[in-house]
């Protein structure tokens, strides 16, 4: 369990980080909390030429209020997410999902941005970011910045819209207007395990009806997915157990889950329906 040799850079600013990435050669890996990168390097699944360690880049940490959105620095640790009052107020779904990530030790080091940039389909936070229509602020060579919506950020298995030489710097989570309820329903076999399937739901209720529902699915394909058909079925539906159950029947539409030790694809599709019903029911306050 010893990684292959690699060069190591530990910049202190975003500019320095971008420079280190540019200088790092053919195969650069950016390390945030290292909770996924270090294990795959130790298993020699990854053998990067250079590791750029962001742990000293202070400007990437923390959460701030930016008017219509809260902005979460990419290097904000899971632990800091859990205790942040802005997240608790505007995006409790993030905190709820973060609390299910691995264990206390991992949450002390692992970061919000690292988990999203890693884009593990079994990871909990990508589906949450997708459900909340988060935006990803990316810095490129020379310091140029661009913003990518969550819907375009997750491209494939462990692959995002981040290009070579780029760095995820912060995530903008829009503040939601109206009365929203949220819930993250995770299904796994032991406490520290990745999700077999999980469902992130945000529901806006209006006059006893469900005005709008946003549903993110974890581990139902190579990327996190929105359960669009279920969302459509819920829009304007009665906030009732029967209506939610009916809508949840379509939760697995358009998904392509994998088959592995924890479940074959048909079982995952079934779980997506049950968990969507449970997540939406809880989010709707029923």
């Amino acid at each position: 369990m010893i990684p292959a040799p690699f060069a190591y850079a530990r910049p202190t600013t975003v500019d320095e980080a971008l420079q280190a990435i540019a200088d790092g050669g053919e195969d650069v890996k950016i390390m945030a909390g290292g909770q996924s990168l270090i294990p795959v390097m130790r298993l020699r699944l990854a053998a990067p030429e250079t590791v750029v360690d962001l742990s000293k880049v202070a400007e990437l940490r923390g959460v701030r209020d930016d008017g219509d959105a809260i902005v979460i620095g990419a290097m904000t640790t899971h632990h800091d997410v859990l205790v942040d009052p802005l997240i608790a107020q505007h995006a409790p779904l993030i905190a709820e999902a973060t609390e299910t990530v691995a264990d206390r030790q991992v949450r002390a080091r692992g970061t919000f941005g690292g988990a999203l940039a890693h884009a593990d389909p079994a990871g909990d936070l990508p589906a949450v970011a997708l459900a909340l229509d988060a935006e990803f602020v990316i810095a490129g060579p020379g310091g140029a910045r661009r913003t990518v919506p969550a819907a375009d950020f997750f491209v494939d298995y462990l692959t995002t819209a981040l290009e070579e030489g780029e760095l995820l710097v912060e995530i903008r989570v829009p503040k939601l207007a109206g009365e929203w309820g949220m819930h993250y329903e995770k299904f796994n076999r032991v406490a520290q395990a990745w999700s077999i399937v999980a469902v992130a739901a945000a529901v806006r209720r209006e006059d006893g009806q469900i005005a709008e529902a946003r549903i993110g699915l974890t581990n139902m394909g190579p990327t996190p997915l929105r359960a669009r058909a279920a969302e459509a079925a819920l829009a304007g539906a009665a906030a009732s157990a029967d209506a939610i159950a009916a809508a949840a029947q379509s939760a697995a539409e358009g998904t392509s889950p994998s088959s592995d030790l924890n479940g074959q694809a048909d079982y995952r599709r079934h779980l997506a329906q049950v968990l969507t019903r449970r997540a939406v029911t809880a989010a709707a306050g029923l």
Partner: protein
Amino acid sequence: MTVTEDAADLAPAKEVGKARRRKEDARLITGRTTWTDNMVLPGMLHIAVVRSPVAHAKITNVDVSAAKQAPGIIAVYTGADFAEEQGSIPCAWPVTPDMVNPGHPSIAVEEVNHVGEAVAVIVARSRTAAADALELVDVDYDLLPPVLDMEEAVKGEADLCHDHIESNTAYHFVFDAGEAGTGADTEQAFADADVVVSRRFVNQRLIPAFMEPRSVVVQPQGDNFTMWSATQIPHVLRVMLAMVTGIPEHKLRVIAPDVGGGFGGKLQVNPEEVIALLVARRLGKPVKWTETRSESLMTAHHGRDQIQYIDVAADREGNVKALRVRLLADMGAYLRLITPGVPALGAFMFPAIYKFPAYRFECDGIFTNKVPTDAYRGAGRPEATFAIERIMDELAVELGMDPLELRRRNWIQAQEFPFTTVAGLEYDSGDYDAATQQALELIGYDELRAEQRRRRESNDPVQLGIGFSTFTEMCGLAPSRVLGSLSYGAGGWEAASIRMLPTGKVEVVTGSTPHGQGHETAWSQLVADQLGVPFEDVEVLHGDTAVSPRGMDTYGSRSLVVGGTAVVKAAEKVVAKARKVAAHLLEASEDDLEFADGKFSVRGTPGTSMGIQEIALAVFAAHNYPEDVEPSIDADATFDPVNFSFPHGTHICAMEVDTETGMVKIRKYACVDDVGTIVNPLIVEGQIHGGLAQGIAQALYEEAVYDADGNLTTGTFVDYLVPSAADLPHFDTGNTVHAAPGNPIGAKGVGEAGCIASTPAVVNAALDAVRHLGVSDIRMPLTPERVWRALHEGGDGGARATAGTNAYGGAQTETTAGVSTPQSSLGGDR
């Protein structure tokens, strides 16, 4: 200050029975101790092992030239380099005279037979240099079809695991009570029976998953060798290594320093131990090998892995008439130390606590292209207990009887002990009914049954079930003569010495080498009582063949029962020797001396006494001692039990099953165990908890899974699920105490009880929850998917998809064997 104390307060409290915290724990828990991998010797070289990424192949070429050129590399060896001297990993248990042993090279020479088998060895100046060179060894394999499925492997036209032997069957072992004279004719009993229930159970392959990885250090000194190894069995290892390598036994010293768990997984002569010894001998330099966690899961021996065909016969009133057991037991690719003996040992436990008049057991040991199986906590007994406790529930269903009522009708009654079973074992003591009553009260049985009814009536998506396991096991391994009759290659005695130091402190030398059980504490308690010395004055030495030259080590819940007894007997000899000296010094007759609380006093002469610790000093000075004795009160003892001991207990599990998702959750768990006299309640409680965790893990979480090519896909703890405290319920535990008559302590053994008993209780509970929905079996582990499939598709939930999880890139065998794959260059940031 005036203090008045009555006599009872003056007498020191007995140590036995006291819940002492373990004196060894501080150093073990903090790691500030001599774990083998902590050892650093001057000039020490590091070994890394190149392992096969394929399950079955001929080796056509091994090119080590690039690896030899790598920085820091001292040598690279292949199987051919050691072919003449490596011999075969020994198998000490030829269960039948005609058992076929294909031979087990430490480094493969011509053929590999499981993924992870050693094919070359790198020796380097640093551990990192050795690891870096692994990928530079280029091995050409000519692939052969892997043999993976036992039921396929026994068919006539099956591919062969070893082409130089005739079939995939290592042995056919039979125990027939009719032939042995311990029971009636089994076939006749089945022919005459009103009711016969037959089932096929799968007792899946498990990985011991001890906490401290295996590690070995070898230091050559002239023609002597010292080996430090993270092993359970330094004494056995020394004998076996001498036989395998030809290094004379007296030139080899083996030390097991503090060892971090084993569960039977370190009851082995490992290929890497042989390799380290051969490399040290070849180079004349100290070497170290420490496995990675991936290597540990992939190449340390596995446990269990049986397909069980169980038939039970009974009359309509629920009186059992006969039991017939046929096993296919997966040996894996080779026979290691006691690979063939594990299922054979189980043969004697299938009849369990029930009065079967007839019994027949047959077992075929089968070769497959997987890592060998061997001892794992319980070793044969959990498999047997699982099968019998499951089939008793099936029989109860068939008869329409309450499962507990069926058991009660057939179990041995308290007044019937000692009881000779249909398997020929003489059960020593116990009271199954008392343990059961206590367990029912602990779990709140009536309330749970009422809730179960409510949930059924309301068609609740979450159903509740209650499962029983009324078990016994054979512990205190083992009477040497019995082992001889079973063709085992060694005895089952244990040795101890007690050294009385001049300052009155006591050194206890035990041959029973601990690997985390708390021997130092428990032995100190025993000796403190026997010699009347303070607990703190006792030090327990172990694990070094130069310090404790004779021993049989720790496994099979034997240490307290056999090793503890040897300690007690040595202490009795110390007292007897000290008595002579005391009589001399006190100028009294030996017959007039009383020994209590560490003091010899002269009967009828108050105030005249001498402590045993004072006598130790007097004997050290040796100025004044009796003419006819040596100036020493030290003593040795060896204890060989006449019979096994038979702990028993009743375990009850209450299980919630979410019928929508298949998720199972233990609601309550209660057990009452009779492990005989309890020396340290805290240690007993800890052993029960740990055992329960492992037994529950077999039922719900753990399974070593191989894919169709023979790759271990549960190659990391991401996919091989070991539960943590967060995943387990509160345990309500209790004890009944029926002292074991076979040893002076009265102990029966507790190391394996929780692990043996719990698995069927958990599965029976899950089935009880959903049987009314048409489910009669679910294969272990009870993954949510299997439970869901059993509920919605019928059957037992079937086989799982073999692919490892996709989480973090799916770390599977082909990559952890050191072979790069397309996934080696994964995208994304982590």
